[in-house]
């Protein structure tokens, strides 16, 4: 049971799943600029609600994150949302949090995702239930995000569970993580990404970037540690659509930092133009992020405004590229 190389998949063996040809992995393996978006499943049993929000994203993104009870609020399960997306021809990134499941459930859900052909998983701690719609619920947090990443990579690369028991078929997903470059302690944030990369993260999506200078400083540390090569960095971006949203993001979202300059710009325009100014700021931020060395893509978060994502991407110069899932023959970890 030799250690696998961190952040790298060994050559596919007969007993392992091969998901090497999928869109996001192929894009990142090829050194392209990846685009992902985020979608929350509905609070209800209607698959159509999810599919309607997904439809405008087709052809614009490499993959769509399907959130897992985001904000500790109950929604349709992320695995089901991910399956619906895959059936609709849009590659999913299945988010999975440590908040609601112990190590048995986490591992079985990961196996289920692999069996259903979900090619990407994003493993995170999750918001505390205290802030959700069931603050009376029991928080689980049996594993933390680093331990879950570690467990997932061991399942895939070593073919073993946390218990050490062997899997009959190794899963083949691409493993992602999240990081917040802006939260204290500032000196620990790049190192924490290093821990996640060593544990198994092959890509990371960040918290919303509004403070591009702070993000660039973090990126300099990340590239200084050589992390961008083993763990691709996708910068989180999104438009602030109203002054109410601005206030909420400033005060109601833990770990989110919005510089005063953004607020000044949004307040400087007439009320009916705030949404447009928010989109303009988002587009400018994407353009600035693309200039930062080591950045492999953007992750667009626009809850309730998914239909506006293509316009943002187009204005940021991310249209007109071949954003369709790459053909299987192009990709594969072995080819690079």
């Amino acid at each position, binding site marked *: 049971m030799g*250690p696998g190389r961190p952040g790298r998949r060994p050559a596919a063996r007969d007993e392992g799943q091969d998901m090497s040809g999928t869109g996001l992995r192929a894009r990142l393996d090829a050194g392209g600029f990846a685009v992902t978006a985020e979608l929350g499943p509905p609070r209800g049993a209607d698959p159509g609600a999810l599919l309607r929000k997904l439809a405008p994203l087709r052809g614009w993104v490499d993959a769509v994150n399907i959130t897992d009870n985001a904000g500790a609020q109950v929604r349709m399960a992320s695995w089901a949302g991910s399956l619906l997306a895959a059936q609709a021809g849009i590659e999913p990134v299945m988010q999975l949090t440590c908040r609601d499941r112990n190590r048995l459930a986490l591992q079985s859900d990961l196996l289920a995702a692999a069996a259903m052909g979900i090619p990407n998983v994003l493993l995170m701690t999750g918001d505390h239930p205290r802030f959700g719609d069931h603050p009376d619920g029991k928080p689980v*947090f049996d*594993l*933390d995000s680093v331990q879950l990443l570690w467990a997932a990579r061991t399942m895939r690369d070593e073919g073993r569970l946390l218990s050490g028991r062997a899997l009959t078929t190794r899963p083949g997903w691409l493993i992602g993580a999240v990081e917040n470059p802006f939260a204290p*302690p500032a000196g620990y944030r790049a190192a924490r990404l290093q821990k996640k990369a060593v544990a198994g993260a092959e890509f990371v999506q960040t918290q919303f970037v509004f403070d591009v200078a702070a993000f660039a400083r973090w990126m300099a540390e990340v590239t200084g540690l050589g992390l961008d090569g083993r763990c691709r960095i996708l910068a989180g971006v999104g438009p602030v659509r109203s002054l109410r949203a601005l206030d909420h993001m400033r005060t109601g979202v*833990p*770990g989110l930092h919005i510089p005063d300059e953004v607020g000044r710009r949004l307040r400087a325009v007439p009320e009916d133009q705030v949404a447009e100014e928010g989109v303009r700021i988002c587009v400018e931020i994407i353009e600035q992020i693309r200039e930062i060395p080591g950045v492999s893509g953007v992750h667009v978060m626009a809850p309730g405004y998914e239909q506006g994502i293509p316009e943002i991407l187009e204005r940021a110069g991310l249209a007109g590229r071949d954003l369709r899932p790459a053909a299987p023959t192009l990709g594969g970890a072995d080819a690079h």
Partner: protein
Amino acid sequence: MSTRTPRSSSPDAAPGAPAWPRPARPRLPARLAYRLQRAVAPNPAYRWLAGVLGRSPAAYRAFTAAERAAKGAVFGCRMCGQCTLPVTGYACPATCPKQLRNGPCGGVGADGSCEVFPDTRCVWVTAYERAEREGHVADLLLLQRPVDHRRAGQSAWVSYWRGEDEGLWAPAGPAGARPPATKART
């Protein structure tokens, strides 16, 4: 943990019931804690003591109660039974409301406050500051293996002296890529 008066909105349980994890501020200066580490490091006498305690359930209970009282008062110890204090700046990660053993979550406030209990300081911010001040930041790169919940309530000191804590963490280099499997225990 129970010394703090819970706010009405806090999920802390009633007095007497186990409180929810809540960031604790260590009452021992980090420098002193690192120095005292040598005082509890395994030696033949401690190994003998661990053997004696292992044979006498009553003595083990008494010793564990004393450890609980001492570490509870100083570190807010919750008796997970597998102590990471020496590699977390002597700030106890078991007091993190999300039970994170590998560093802070992304919800830390700009002022270093805990996301879940904003009137407390994130225990990982505390850990980082203490470790940095004492030149121990590299400890925070170690990969901490999942908690073995069978050890809850046991004496971490006795386990330490018995040599049962080896493998609690792994270096975050290529050698740390060893699988995170929990050790089989009887």
